[in-house]
């Protein structure tokens, strides 16, 4: 492993409360010093980070790389390159692969694929119930031992509350974190957009906020009953933020994240029948967006995730309700976070914490900080560099994004994962 000297960058490390110009020294894949040059340090590689921000590599709490089983949509290879180019050094994989991550063999397969793609920091989330069907419990302990970092049911609701209760109890007995995406199956009613003016105008099947808030409220009750640790993923509406705030105030051990597109888009932004806007939970109202932003600023929501869901062209090539939901989102994660900073919603330190420190806390991993002795997971980005979302710059195999063609400010120049340079903008030729 080489010795790397990251020179004169603006270091932002919320965990250690650092925000100043300085150097970071890396050896043996670890951070050995921040600011002070260790005695006798002879760098093999010097990265000039002048006018750039040096921060912990990003941790994405909800990602899909589509392997195993859906390589027509994306592969480990394509998506890990995209992640590296976006400054993401750790990814949690949702279990809705094919086959579902509900057996240790699938976890082994994923670990092997990650190794092949040269991107080891992939944490599978195991299915909460077998095949995500919400009927029988998955072998959570074996899955944890195989390497799963948490358990969850991805986009599939657990319809039967007794089964949810037992799943949460069982997870709690093995101190497993449950990642829960609140969505009531019946109220969701196979909808594809928010139940509001847009759905009414275009006659599209719709999903009320209550589909999310009722499932959230039920799960909060079960948190109290079972003592299970729960992280709520990809919240979409105002009343969810209020409920999380109240639950935290009450003393429940819960946390929450939001998918970055929810902080920027509402139902009013949907270009009629453009399937790139088909996401679940759906894009909601301006008031919901404002509350999500406030929730992030106040810390009620502590993390931002990409909720990356790359699709093949055919998955989005149909009438809107027939298309598959989701956005390819790894590469827009940082620029969309920076947009919130530019708009004065959060500080740059908060933004970086929501992508590193806070998700690391949610997962309970030693990462998300430039602490001496930690693995050198580092993102270096130029906050002023503009770039356009187009086929020259885009790495993900999925091009399903409503931000296609837009120009963003802020681009990752280098990404280090455990001290290894996994992305260098100059070399990548983009």
């Amino acid at each position, binding site marked *: 492993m080489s010795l790397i000297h990251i020179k004169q960058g603006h270091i932002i490390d919320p965990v250690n409360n650092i925000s100043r110009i300085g150097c970071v020294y890396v050896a043996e894949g670890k951070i050995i010093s921040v600011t002070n040059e260790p005695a006798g340090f002879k760098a093999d590689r010097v990265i000039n980070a002048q006018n750039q921000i040096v921060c912990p590599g990003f941790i994405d709490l909800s990602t899909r790389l589509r392997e195993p089983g859906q390589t027509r949509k994306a592969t480990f290879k394509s998506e890990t390159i995209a992640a590296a180019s976006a400054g993401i050094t750790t990814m949690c994989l949702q279990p809705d692969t094919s086959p579902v991550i509900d057996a240790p063999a699938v976890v082994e397969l994923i670990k092997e694929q990650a190794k092949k793609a040269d991107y080891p920091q992939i944490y599978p989330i195991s299915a909460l119930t077998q095949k995500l069907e919400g009927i029988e419990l998955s072998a959570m302990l074996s899955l944890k031992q195989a390497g799963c970092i948490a358990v969850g049911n991805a986009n599939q609701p657990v319809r039967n509350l007794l089964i949810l209760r037992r799943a949460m109890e069982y997870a709690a007995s093995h101190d497993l974190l449950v990642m829960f995406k609140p969505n009531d199956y019946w109220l969701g009613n196979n909808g594809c957009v928010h*139940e*509001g*003016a847009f*759905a*009414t*105008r*275009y*006659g*599209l*099947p*719709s999903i*009320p906020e209550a589909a999310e808030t009722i499932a959230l409220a039920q799960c909060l009750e079960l948190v109290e009953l079972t003592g299970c640790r729960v992280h709520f993923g990809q919240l979409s509406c105002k009343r969810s933020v209020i409920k999380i705030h109240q639950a935290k105030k009450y003393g429940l051990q819960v946390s929450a994240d939001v998918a970055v597109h929810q902080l920027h888009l509402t139902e009013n932004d949907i*270009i*009629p*029948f*453009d399937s790139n806007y088909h996401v679940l939970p759906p894009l909601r109202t301006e008031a919901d967006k404002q509350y999500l932003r406030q929730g992030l600023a106040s810390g009620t929501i502590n993390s931002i995730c990409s909720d990356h869901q790359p699709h093949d062209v*055919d998955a989005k*090539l*149909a*009438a*809107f*309700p*027939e298309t598959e939901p989701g956005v390819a989102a790894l590469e827009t994660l940082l620029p969309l976070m920076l947009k919130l900073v530019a708009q004065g919603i959060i500080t740059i330190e908060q933004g970086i914490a929501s992508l590193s420190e806070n998700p690391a806390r949610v997962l309970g991993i030693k990462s998300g900080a430039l602490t001496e002795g930690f693995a050198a997971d580092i993102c270096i980005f130029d906050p002023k560099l503009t770039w356009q979302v187009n086929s020259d710059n885009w790495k993900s195999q999925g091009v399903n994004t409503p931000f296609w063609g837009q120009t963003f400010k802020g681009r990752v120049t280098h990404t280090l994962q455990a001290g290894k340079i996994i992305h260098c903008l100059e070399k990548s030729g983009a």
Partner: protein
Amino acid sequence: MTDNLQLNAEGKLKHFLSIEGLPKSLLTEILDIAESFVGIGDHQIKKVPLLRGKTIVNLFFENSTRTRTTFELAAKRLSADVLSMSISTSSTSKGESLLDTIRNLEAMFVDMFVVRHAISGAAHFIAQQTAPHISVINAGDGQHAHPTQAMLDMFTIRQIKKDFSNLRVAIIGDILHSRVARSQIQALNTLGAAEVRVIAPKTLLPAHVESLGVNISHDLTEGLKDIDVIIMLRLQKERMTSALLPSESEYFKCFGLTEDKLKIAKPDAIVMHPGPINRGVEIDSKVADGPQSVILKQVSNGIAIRMAIMAMAMQKQGAN
């Protein structure tokens, strides 16, 4: 995108997908051109040569008798070659995608698709994907739009009431699932009706229905006051099994149009229904067949309005 998709560079009709985004002048032009086609049914030779040599394919992914027949007749009276396909049970059940079906038909050199599909947005999707020389007419997509039905209703209203500006129109029934209602509301508001009122129980109204530019009533007796035009919607049997309504008889009691209820509206009010009607469910036979009913007139007008829209989309003007 939807706004422009329907019009060509000169602002002329290219596709007819929804009323939304079309200016009042264009809607009026459709009505005027339809007027010129009205008499044709009475002629010895019921044809004009406007679309001679053109091939029109009726693509019905959902069952329909009336709409398909009137589209077929309209195309034939314009001298086009017409092919009607019911696809609900053929290729799609073999796994062929909507797009593949369209591509295959395109390869047979068609000029126009008339599309009915159970999914909202299907006609827009086809219009976006199809070859540039092909026009697409929406004959009903999911719960989104049924613009030719709305235009024939506007045509019928104008024939009788002449002007829209003083009209109060009530639309009664299952607004939630009705593509007809959505298109009617947009057409009436574009043409400048004084008021559009929707009358239904909350379970049959979409969220924020007022955002469409309507007043709301949950009571037929209240709602029919001062009304010039009554539009009844068909009540599907599925609404009972999905717990939106308790029973047909309770629905008829609350929202069925009877002779007594009709008296609440203005004495010269007309009664409309896009069909097919459910006698004794949303409308009493005496009203459906009564002097104020214009239901059959709507059906005959369907041919003229569809001739007008097809001719315009193919850049041909009215019958001269």
